[in-house]
């Protein structure tokens, strides 16, 4: 084996072992992180009587109906009325409740964005927005249900905290971290199952990116579902003798500037990877930090200026240039630019 297990941090050993194989996640426990959210809400509901869950007729799909069954008096289904749900959540938060407003990313970040901005973020009320179907993770549903730009939209709103956890373990931790934080948090979850890649010791702290693989030749900074694919890319590049750092940038905003700059200084070349448009999201955030502090070659992986389409989730990642092989190719390109510079 050409890869070094000791280079990985918080990644389950059985995952590390197979990363470079044909079926990198053959052994992984697969789960959609929307369900990790639902699980975490059950725990939170037990622990904190101020926690309430708001739905907009997708509680079956997000399994927040589990919370509704266990805590019926703290569960509110607004029907298909996302605007009302978001502004009502703000009103609830003024009384000390901690509302988790749950819907799909497209509806949270588009249909109700005015309420999200003016009623929640402007007065900085303690509302958590739980968005499933982020990125093009609801493959077969097609464009209208694919939150391909939600991270960019939420990052543009002042006072926002935007969190996009990579796997079921970190997703649950992110929910608890959001609940503990006083202020609005946008939580981005996947519709499709993603591999469980982390051990329970994953140190999720809002605003602190995590180096999940060491490396010195280049860095891939990824978030949400693309972290797993970044690990695969790194493992394959390791077989070719390249040591690539992988950073799980679960908190897109506030960005962990220190971690990004350390990677810039120590590896000299960066690839960003997000299942999100390449306008205004992770790639932009990292580019901003680089040009303002330490300009080095960088390349973005993400959805280009296009609406995608229906199809199986992984096939879409591949068709739209976001799979491990695209990341590996991008790493080679930024490294070539680094050498030329």
């Amino acid at each position, binding site marked *: 084996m050409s890869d070094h297990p000791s280079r990985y941090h918080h990644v389950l050993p059985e995952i590390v072992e197979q990363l470079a194989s044909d079926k990198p996640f053959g052994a992984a426990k697969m789960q959609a992180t929307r369900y990790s959210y639902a699980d975490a809400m059950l725990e939170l509901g037990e622990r904190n009587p101020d926690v309430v869950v708001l739905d907009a*007729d997708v509680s079956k799909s997000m399994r927040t109906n589990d919370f509704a069954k266990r805590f019926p008096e703290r569960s509110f289904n607004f*029907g298909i009325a996302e605007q009302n749900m978001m502004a009502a959540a703000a009103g609830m938060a003024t009384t000390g409740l901690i509302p988790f407003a749950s819907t799909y990313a497209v509806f949270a970040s588009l249909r109700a964005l005015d309420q999200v901005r003016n009623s929640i973020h402007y007065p900085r009320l303690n509302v958590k927005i739980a968005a499933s179907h982020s990125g093009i993770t609801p493959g*077969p549903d097609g464009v*209208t249900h694919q939150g391909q730009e939600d991270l960019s939209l939420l990052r543009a709103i002042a006072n926002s905290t935007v969190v996009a956890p990579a796997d079921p373990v970190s997703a649950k931790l992110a929910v608890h971290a959001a609940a503990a934080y006083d202020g609005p948090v946008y939580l981005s979850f996947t519709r499709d199952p993603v591999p469980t890649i982390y051990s329970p010791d994953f140190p999720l702290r809002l605003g602190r990116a995590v180096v999940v693989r060491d490396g010195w030749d280049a860095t891939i900074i990824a978030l949400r579902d693309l972290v797993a694919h970044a690990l695969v890319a790194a493992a394959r590049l390791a077989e070719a003798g390249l040591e690539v750092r992988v950073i799980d940038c679960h908190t897109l905003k506030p960005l962990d500037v220190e971690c990004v700059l350390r990677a810039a200084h120590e590896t000299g070349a960066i690839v960003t990877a997000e299942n999100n448009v390449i306008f205004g999201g992770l790639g932009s955030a990292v580019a901003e930090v680089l040009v303002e502090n330490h300009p080095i070659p960088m390349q973005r992986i993400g959805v280009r200026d296009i609406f995608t389409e229906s199809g199986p989730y992984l096939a879409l990642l591949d068709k739209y240039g976001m799979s491990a092989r695209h990341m590996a190719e991008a790493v080679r390109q930024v490294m070539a630019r680094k050498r030329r510079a």
Partner: protein
Amino acid sequence: MHQVSSAARTEIGPSIEELKGTAQVIRRDIITMIHAAQAGHPGGSLSATDIVTALYFRIMRLDPADPHWPDRDRFILSKGHACPVWYAALAERGFFDKTHLATLRKLDSILQGHADMKKTPGIDMTVGSLGQGICAGLGMALAGKLHGKDYHVFVMIGDGESQEGSVWEAALAAPRWKLDNLTVIVDNNGIQNDTFTDDIMPVEPLAEKWRAFRWNVIEIDGHKMEEIVPALESCLYRDPPDSAGAEGHQPEDCDTTVTRRPGIPTVIIAKTVKGRGVSFMENVPAWHGAAPNDAQAQAALAEFAEGLR
């Protein structure tokens, strides 16, 4: 220039009995395609089937060979998740080859999970985010008036969709502009995504609401062709070709009399059954967005075969 005009709309049109048969064919295609895709929304497709059939096979003026014909009537399935019924009707009507149906929701398909007007011939508006199709239909109706055209715009919305505020924005606006070339049909099947509408966010009394928004309201059984056809014909902006005059038109094979109300848009509140036609899907919320497995698909198709015989 364009030679179709009223010829495209079959002068006599299929009989009520023929329409019933066509509806069963469409139901079969719905189940077949959702089964093949192993994803999609059978419940709301089946509740809408009889009305969509009446529209595409008897009411609407269309030319399958020229889906962009400016004088065509428009239909928008604002409850876009139910697009399998739309795709099946368009294919049966000849807008595209039926072989496409098997590609529903697959990569590179012309049949997206929610309907995309730029990918599928005959789709008049891209839909999927609830509450938008009705507003787009309003825009088409405004444009029709401005252009002096006599086409009619039909929009179907869901009862759950009626919870969206934008539906009521459009409801407020249509009478203000006297859009009698616009008809909204509510597929009132009593179920939305999570469960029964009454247990989530009741929308009744729907008729009273639309009346208060100043619409002409017609209530029908959305599965009785004998009620569907005359209700739809009664609100057609232009005279139906087989009609003597604008007032009190009554097709011979239908049992309802309705009167046109010039200058006032009409809403047809259609009482329907979600999953209609497949015994085990009928009125069961779980079939809102679940695909049948092999055995279930077979059972459903067997029921249709029964009905088609």
